[in-house]
C-alpha cells in the first residue's frame, strides 16, 4: 500500500502561511513517498474531511477544490481523516491497492480503526513538537534579554561622584524587555562634571548596542569639547552614518560646575529636566533633534544656577509615560508637581517611584525603562542668591565634645579667617557666635560625649564668611523657644542661662538651622564688611 501522510497544525495557521508561498509540490513518482499536499483553510475539501465519518473516496469526489485536484493528480484513492477531540489534525492519504482492486469495506473498517488509534498519538507528537519549538523560542528571547541587560548595566556608572556640597543620586530599572535608557557621569577638567541621560528607541540588544556606541562617542567628545551643544553635535555626526533604520537616540547632556552651581546643558529631543526651587519647580528648556536622525544638526544650550538647597531632576520617558489601568499617563504636570512637593535628591527619586507604582496599579508590570538622576546642592547661605562666586573651603575640622572646647573652635576659626581681613569688631562677633554655637552643639547635640565630636566647616565667598557647625544630635526636639528676658531671670521666673541663641542671632548677619540624616547643622553667615563697621 502506497500512501502519504500530511499533518497540519491545529487551527491550520501553518497551512494558511504555506498557502501564501504557493504550491511547491511536484507529483510523486509511482511507488515513491510523495511530498505533502497543502489544503488551504478555505478549501471545501477541508470542511468535508472534518465532517466525514470515515475514509473518503477521493476519486468519486466532485468538488471545486484545488487540493482535491492535487490529490487526484498524486494518485490518491482514499483519504482517511485523522480527528482528535473533534479537530482534524491530519489526513492519511492512500494510493491504489497493489492488487489494483478497490478498497473493500473490511479495508475501510481497518483504516478507520487505524485512524482512531493514530490520531491521538499524532496529536501528542504534534503537541510535544510545538512545546519544544516554543521553549526554544522563549529561551532565545530570554538569552537576548540577558545579553541586552548585560550590555546596559556594563555601561552604566559603577559609582556616582562624591562632590563637595552636592548629593548625586541615580536610579535605573529596566523594563522586562530592556529598553534603551542610559545615564552617565563624566569627570571633566577643572572639577566640572558632565551628566548624561538618554534613551535609544527600540528595545533589546539593538538598543543596547546603540546605547553603548552613543555613550562611548559622548565620553570622548566631552573630553575634547567644552560646550554641551558642540558635544551633542559631534556625537550626532558620529552616529548618523551607522545608525540602523528607524532608530535614534534622545539625549540630554549638561555640565555642572560644583563650585558655582552652574549647570549648562544641551538637549537632543530628550524629556526636559526640572529644577526644584524655593518657590516650587521649573522646567528647563533647550531644543534640538534626537541624535542619529540627520547630520548637521545644531543644539540649543541653556543654563541655570542651582542655588544652595535646590535640586535638578533628569528623567526618562518611562516615568511620565507610565500608564494606569485606564490607559492614562502619569504625565509631565504630575512629575513637575512632585519635584515641587517632595524633598530633592534620593528621596525625590524614592517618592516618585512610589507614585509611579501606585499609578501603574497593584502588580502591574513596568512598561518601559525608568531612569532618574538628581543633583542636589546642599543647603547653604541663602544670601548668596546670585551664586556666581564660588565658596572656598577655608577649614574643616572636628572638635571633641568636652566642656571648654568651644575655645578650640574659636581659635581654629580665627586662624582660618585670618586672611579675610575682617575688622576686629566683626571678628569678635564671629568668635562669640562660633563659641556659643559650638557650646550648644557639644552640650545639646552631643551631650558632651567624646565619641560625638562637633564638625566645623569654614567657607568664604561672595563677600561672606560662613561657619557650619554640625553635631550628631539630629533634629532638636520641637519645643517652644524661651526668649531670654532679664527681668524674668532677675525675678526668678526664668533660669539665669539660655542666652546662647540670642547672642548668636545678634552677632551674625544670618543664622540657619538644618537637620538631616541624624545630623544637625547651624550655619552662621557674616558679611566680611558690615554697614556698621566703624560705628562699633
Amino acid at each position, binding site marked *: 500500500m502506497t500512501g502519504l501522510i500530511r499533518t497540519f497544525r491545529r487551527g491550520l495557521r501553518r497551512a494558511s502561511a504555506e498557502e501564501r508561498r504557493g504550491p511547491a509540490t511536484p507529483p510523486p513518482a509511482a511507488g515513491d513517498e510523495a511530498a505533502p499536499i497543502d489544503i488551504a483553510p478555505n478549501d471545501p475539501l477541508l470542511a468535508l474531511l472534518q465532517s466525514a465519518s470515515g475514509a473518503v473516496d477521493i476519486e468519486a469526489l466532485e468538488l471545486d477544490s484545488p487540493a482535491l485536484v492535487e490529490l487526484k493528480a498524486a494518485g490518491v484513492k482514499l483519504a482517511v481523516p485523522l480527528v482528535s477531540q473533534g479537530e482534524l489534525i491530519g489526513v492519511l492519504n492512500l494510493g491504489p491497492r497493489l492488487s489494483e482492486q478497490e478498497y473493500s469495506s473490511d479495508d475501510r473498517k481497518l483504516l478507520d480503526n487505524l485512524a482512531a488509534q493514530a490520531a491521538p498519538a499524532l496529536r501528542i507528537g504534534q503537541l510535544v513538537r510545538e512545546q519544544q519549538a516554543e521553549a526554544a523560542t522563549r529561551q532565545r528571547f530570554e538569552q537576548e534579554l540577558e545579553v541586552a541587560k548585560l550590555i546596559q548595566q556594563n555601561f552604566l556608572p559603577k559609582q556616582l561622584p562624591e562632590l563637595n556640597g552636592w548629593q548625586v543620586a541615580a536610579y535605573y530599572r529596566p523594563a522586562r524587555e530592556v529598553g534603551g535608557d542610559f545615564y552617565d557621569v563624566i569627570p571633566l577638567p577643572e572639577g566640572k562634571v558632565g551628566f548624561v541621560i538618554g534613551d535609544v528607541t527600540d528595545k533589546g540588544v539593538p538598543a543596547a548596542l546603540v546605547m553603548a556606541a552613543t555613550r562611548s562617542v559622548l565620553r570622548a567628545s566631552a573630553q575634547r569639547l567644552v560646550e554641551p551643544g558642540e558635544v551633542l553635535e559631534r556625537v550626532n555626526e558620529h552616529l548618523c552614518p551607522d545608525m540602523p533604520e528607524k532608530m535614534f537616540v534622545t539625549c540630554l547632556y549638561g555640565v555642572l560646575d560644583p563650585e558655582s552651581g552652574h549647570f549648562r546643558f544641551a538637549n537632543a529631543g530628550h524629556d526636559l529636566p526640572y529644577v526644584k526651587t524655593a518657590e516650587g519647580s521649573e522646567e528647563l528648556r533647550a531644543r534640538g533633534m534626537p541624535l542619529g536622525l540627520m547630520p548637521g544638526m545644531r543644539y540649543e544650550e541653556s543654563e541655570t544656577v542651582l542655588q544652595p538647597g535646590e535640586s535638578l531632576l533628569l528623567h526618562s520617558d518611562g516615568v511620565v509615560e507610565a500608564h494606569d489601568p485606564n490607559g492614562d499617563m502619569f504625565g509631565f504636570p504630575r512629575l513637575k508637581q512632585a519635584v515641587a512637593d517632595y524633598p530633592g535628591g534620593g528621596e525625590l527619586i524614592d517618592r516618585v517611584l512610589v507614585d509611579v507604582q501606585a499609578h501603574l496599579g497593584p502588580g502591574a508590570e513596568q512598561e518601559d525603562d525608568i531612569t532618574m538622576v538628581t543633583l542636589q546642592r546642599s543647603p547653604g547661605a541663602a544670601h548668596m542668591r546670585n551664586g556666581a562666586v564660588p565658596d572656598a573651603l577655608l577649614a574643616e575640622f572636628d572638635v571633641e565634645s568636652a566642656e*571648654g572646647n*568651644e575655645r578650640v573652635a574659636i581659635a581654629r576659626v580665627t586662624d582660618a579667617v585670618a586672611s579675610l581681613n575682617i575688622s576686629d*569688631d566683626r571678628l*569678635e562677633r564671629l568668635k562669640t557666635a562660633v563659641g556659643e554655637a559650638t557650646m550648644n552643639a557639644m552640650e545639646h547635640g552631643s551631650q558632651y560625649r567624646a565619641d560625638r565630636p562637633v564638625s566645623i566647616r569654614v567657607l568664604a565667598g561672595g563677600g561672606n564668611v560662613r561657619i557650619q557647625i554640625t553635631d550628631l544630635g539630629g533634629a532638636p526636639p520641637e519645643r517652644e523657644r524661651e526668649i531670654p528676658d*532679664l527681668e524674668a531671670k*532677675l525675678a526668678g521666673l526664668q533660669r*539665669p*542661662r539660655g542666652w*546662647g541663641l*540670642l547672642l548668636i542671632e545678634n552677632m551674625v548677619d544670618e543664622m540657619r538651622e538644618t537637620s538631616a540624616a541624624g545630623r544637625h547643622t547651624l550655619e552662621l553667615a557674616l558679611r566680611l564688611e558690615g554697614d556698621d563697621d566703624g560705628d562699633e
Partner: protein
Amino acid sequence: MATSEIPAVRRRDGVAVIDLTGDVNRGAEESLDAAWARATRDRPDAVVLNFEGAGYINSTGIALIVGLLARARATGLDIRAYGLSPHYREIFEITRLADFLAINPDEESAVRGAEGNTNA
C-alpha cells in the same frame, strides 16, 4: 581657663571692687561666688565689677553675672561695671544687663557713680 583663681576684691571709698581675671564662663562660677561673698561681707555701698583683666565671656558667664545682679537687687545693693571692651559692652546691651547695672568707662567714674548714688 585661668578662672579658678578667686578674683581680688578691693575696698575703695566704701565701694567693693572685684577685679575679674581670665575667662568668665562656667569654670568661673565658684571663684566668682567666693569673690562676691568677700566683697559683700562688710556691707559696701556698692560693688564694682572690673572687667579690665577679664578675657572671654560666654553666655554661661553672662548667666553668672545675672546671678550676681539678682543677689545685689535682693539686698538693695548697687552694682556697677567698668573696663568692658566695646564687644562685651554690646553684649551687655543685647542682654539688657546694661539696663540694670551702670557701665562706666573707668574705675574712677564707677566708684564715684556709686558714691553719688549712695549720697542721693
